[in-house]
Each structure stands twice: as C-alpha cells, then as structure tokens.
C-alpha cells in the first residue's frame, strides 16, 4: 500500500450483455485526493463508482482500497460510503436518525451517539436541525445530511454520485466550495462522478475524463484544459477549434501543419510527438483566438466575417466564417466595457489572430 495508489483500479471491466459499460480501465487514486470521474452520460463513470461501492460486480479486473482487494465484499462491509444522486434521505426518519443510521452496529451509548450526531450537524452547519423530519429540510440541506450520514462512518473513501446535480445554479456554486473545504477538513479521499466539466475543474485535484467505458486522460484540471492529449478531452472540457491537417515540418519545438481549409498553421504547443506526414488536429481554445477590427501589422491574421454571436454577460462568443472552411471559428472575448455586446453580425470584416504557443497538436481521430 502507498499513498500514491490508495485506490488502485486494475484492468477493470463491466459488461451489461454486449455493452461494455467499463472497458479495461486501470488507474490509481492518491490518499486524500479529491478525484473526479468526468464524462458524458453513458460513459461508464457511474458504473465505475457503483463497482467501488459494491452495487455492481466487475466482469473482469480488481479494485484495491488501501492495499486490500475489495471485489466480492458486500456493500455493507466495504470501507467506503456513498452520497447518492437523489441523496436517499430516509423519509420515515428524522435528520438525527438519518445521520445516526449507520452507527447501530457500533454499539454506542445513547449519549455518545447524540454527541457524534451533534458534532456532525455542527460540521455541516445545521446545528439544531436534528429533530426535523426528512421532509422539513431543503434540497441543499438534504445534501449536507447525506454527506454527514456518510462521513460519520469515517470511511476510507467517500463516493459521490453527481452530488450537486439536484441543486440550482447559485446553490451549486456555493456547495462546490463548501465540499472542497469539507474534504480538506476531514482529509478523506473523495471520488465523485459528474458530467459537468465546470464542477470537475473547480473542485478536483485530478480528473479522469471518461468516454465509452475508457478512461482517456487523467490529470490535474489545468493540465487537462490547457494541454489535452485527445480531441475528446479538449472538446469535452470547454470548447475548442479543431483544424485537420498533416505535419509538413517539425522540429525545434515548432511544427508546420498543412491544412486543406486554411493553408499553413504553425504550432509551438507542448505536444510535438509527431513525424512529418502524420495526420493531426491543430487545436486552439476560443479564448486564445483574438479578434481585431483592422488587419494586424505584418499581414498576419485570418480574415473572416461574423456569422453569429452569443452574448453571455461577462463575455461573448463570436462565430466567425473564414474563407475555405465550412465550420465557423469560435472566439471568446471578454466583455470589457461592453465591447463584446456591441459586436454585431452582418458584413463586418475582422481579423483573427493567435499566438503559436496556444495552438496545440492532437492526434487525428
């Protein structure tokens, strides 16, 4: 056992009939880490979580927690606890009884149990709520009770299935920070499932991006966002412009890509692991595409016309038509002093520029 591989998932697969919900996945989760399983619905993230909890049996492979293999151990004997998507607060019990539910086997005295529950209520900032019925608390409070109910068991790992999915946007943002703080405070390893990339970026130490039963990339949020290694990851975490082409020259941290749509593109990105003649995607985040109303000096820049714009308050997305390319190029600009909101559609000609460092290369798929 080591802190680096506190949870170890090894060649894990789960098949439902012909469907490979989880397909030969291997990775480690560190002790005390806030780890996200991120992916679209049906990517296998929830199945993976439920295998850790013991509600699904793996078809193949093994999982270890703190060095112990866990498959075959029933859910009620595993050193993990789970916060369910619906929170699963027992409706026939009070808040206090819900939180104390898992303590029955510990043979505590009434006083000890009450003390633990009171501390727990304190932790989730709901002191004095113990005697409320389960139907007398709000959605956000239910989520906290579900957390307290699991954490009072002092699990080695806490599993969270879309923990914020049922809350409205404001509350969700607040709970993201609270969950993060709570995790640091208790020091328990959190593994949570989400389809919301923003949530994963905000809360986690590391993210595993999943697609079609595979864990495509596992890394820290900033690394995954700035230097994705796959088209899926770049596309799922935020948005990205992709230009297909072949490598015509590479070396010295610089590559030239010949594209059919837009001529040559130069990349000085992080991933230079390609040969001349390889099919690649040159990719750039919309916020790295700058828009100017006049042609920049030196004749650089790509000329285009605005096809559509989406005003998002603090920023705006511009969809720019570029000659030779079917899809518009997306640019995100800050709405400083209302510049973006005045950017209309129509026949206005503008120029797109970017730095070669922010143009990264991905293998073509």
């Amino acid at each position: 056992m080591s802190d680096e591989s506190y949870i170890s998932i090894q060649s894990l697969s789960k098949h439902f009939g012909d469907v490979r919900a989880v397909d030969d996945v291997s990775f480690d989760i560190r002790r005390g880490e806030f780890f996200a399983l991120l992916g679209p619905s049906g990517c296998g993230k929830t199945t993976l979580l439920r295998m850790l909890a013991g509600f699904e049996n793996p078809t193949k492979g093994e999982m270890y927690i703190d060095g112990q293999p866990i498959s075959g151990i029933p859910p009620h004997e595993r050193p993990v606890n789970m916060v369910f998507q619906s929170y699963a607060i027992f409706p026939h019990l009070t808040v206090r009884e819900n939180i104390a539910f898992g303590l029955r086997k510990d043979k505590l005295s009434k006083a000890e149990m009450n003390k633990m529950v009171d501390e727990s209520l304190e932790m989730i900032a709901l002191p004095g709520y113990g005697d409320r019925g389960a139907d007398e608390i709000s959605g956000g409070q239910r989520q906290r009770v579900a957390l307290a109910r699991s954490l009072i068991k002092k699990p080695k790992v806490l599993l969270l299935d879309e923990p914020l999915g049922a809350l409205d946007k404001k509350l969700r943002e607040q709970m993201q920070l609270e969950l993060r703080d709570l995790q640091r405070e208790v020091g328990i390893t959190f593994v949570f499932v989400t389809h919301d990339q923003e949530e994963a970026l905000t809360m986690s130490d590391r993210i595993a991006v999943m697609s079609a039963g595979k864990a495509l990339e596992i890394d820290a949020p900033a690394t995954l966002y700035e230097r994705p290694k796959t088209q899926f990851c770049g596309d799922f975490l935020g948005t990205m412009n992709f230009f297909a082409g072949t490598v015509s020259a590479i070396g010295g941290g610089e590559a030239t890509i010949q594209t059919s749509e837009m001529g040559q593109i130069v990349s000085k990105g992080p991933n230079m692991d390609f040969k001349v003649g390889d099919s690649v995607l040159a990719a750039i985040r919309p916020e790295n595409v700058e828009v100017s109303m006049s042609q920049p000096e030196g004749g650089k820049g790509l000329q285009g016309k605005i096809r559509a714009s989406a005003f998002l308050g603090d920023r705006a997305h511009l969809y720019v038509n570029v000659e030779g390319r079917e899809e518009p190029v997306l640019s995100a600009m800050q709405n400083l002093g209302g510049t973006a909101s005045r950017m209309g559609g129509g026949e206005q000609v503008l120029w797109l520029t970017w730095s070669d460092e922010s143009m990264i290369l991905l293998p073509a798929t």
Partner: protein
Amino acid sequence: MKKNKFGALGVYTVLYLAFLYIPVLFLPLFSFNDSIYIAFPLKGLTFKWYEAMLESGPLLNALQNSIELGISVSVISTIFGTLAAKAFTRYRIPGAKPLTAFISIPLVIPLIIMGISLLVVLKSVDVSLSLFTIGLGHVVICVPFSMFVMISRLEGFDKSMEEAAQDLGETPWMTFWRVTFPLVLPGIIASLLLCFTISFDEFMLAFFLGGEEATLPIYMWSQLRFPNKLPPVLALGSAILIASFFVVTFAELVRRRGVQMQSSSGA
C-alpha cells in the same frame, strides 16, 4: 354573478350530501326506535335491538364468518398483490403490460358473471361450497385492487434508499426491516383495509359460492323477509357504521403520512 353561481352550486351540494347521508342516518335512528316497523312516527327510545343483536346466535355467527373471511382475504390478496406489484415495478418482465391487464380483468367483469363461472368451475371439480370457496372468489377480485395500491406505492420508491442502507452497513435483511418495510407499510395497510372492506360487504360472490355458513350480507338479505328480525340487523348496521368511521379515519391518517413520505423521498 359570482354569488349566484355559488348559490346554485351550494343548493346542488346540499341536495347531493342529503341524498348521500340521510338514508345512512336512518339506520342508527331506527335502531333506537321501539318498534319492529321501520316507519315514522318514531315510538320511543330503546336499546333492546342492540341486546337482541348480541343475543342472536346466527347474526353473530355471520358477523364472525365475515370478519374471519375478510381478514384471510385481505392478508392473502395483499401478499399476492404486493408480490405482483414488486415484480412489475422492480423487474423488466416480458409482457408486463398484458399481464397487468389480465390480472385486472376481474375489476371490469360483472360479479354475477364471475360468480356463475366460478360456481361452474368449482362444481365441475367437485369442490363443496363453503366460506373457503367464497374466499377464493374474493381473493380473485381483491388482488388487482391490492396490486394497484402497491404499484403506486412502490413506483415512488427510490431504490437508492435500500442501497443507502446497505452502504451504511446494514445487511440486506436489516435493510428490509429498517427501510423497505417502514416505507411500504402505509401501502400494505391501505391494501389490507381496502381488501377487507371489499370482502366484508361483497354479496354476489358470497351468494353464488357460499355453502351452509352465511356471511353477514347474505344473513342480512335473508332476514329482510322477517320484519321482527330486522331491527337487530339495523343495530348491527349502526355498529358497523361507527366502526368503519374509525377505520376510515385511521386509514386516511396512514395515507396522509404515506403521501408526505413520498413527496419527500424526492423520487
């Protein structure tokens, strides 16, 4: 305008309620009347019909038969209904829709047809008629009621409740007792009460499938021919009225508790 509308509706409501309840109120009224004839004017207050009721062997016997029958039928039907509901809500069963439809057919077949056809079948396999055969008939008509009550209860049941209990360290058996059972209990009680009520006042099947032992509705029917035997039946009717008032109140309280729970289970 608005006031007029309300007035017309008000009159309608009063008439409706009067038609619904005044006949029922005649029952206790005449049960205290010192005359064997059920007619106005009232003669005077008496409790002798209640005494006669308590002393009437056949009447009490019929009451006992009906209660025993009702309890057996409600318990058996609720077991079958719950199992069927559990199967339909939890598992994917091939042909689930036609199956539920077939199980519910007794709800729409006239009881007289059910009675005759069951009688033909029972006679052809040479089963002698008794409370047991009435019970068979009652179970057939009660199971669909029980099934629908339980389906509506189980459909609102969040499966993650059971998973959460196991996740928190309970074995499947303790999960059933600490979570599943308390959550479906209101449905089970509602089903028991409903099936008991159906069996308790069912006449048609009891008439066709009954042997020597009469159920209460059959006994009451047979007494209508004898004017002097009628007042104790009125007394019994009044007693049942009071009892059902309490039962219905209790059932409604349980149901409300159940509704509250479901709305808070977030499902």
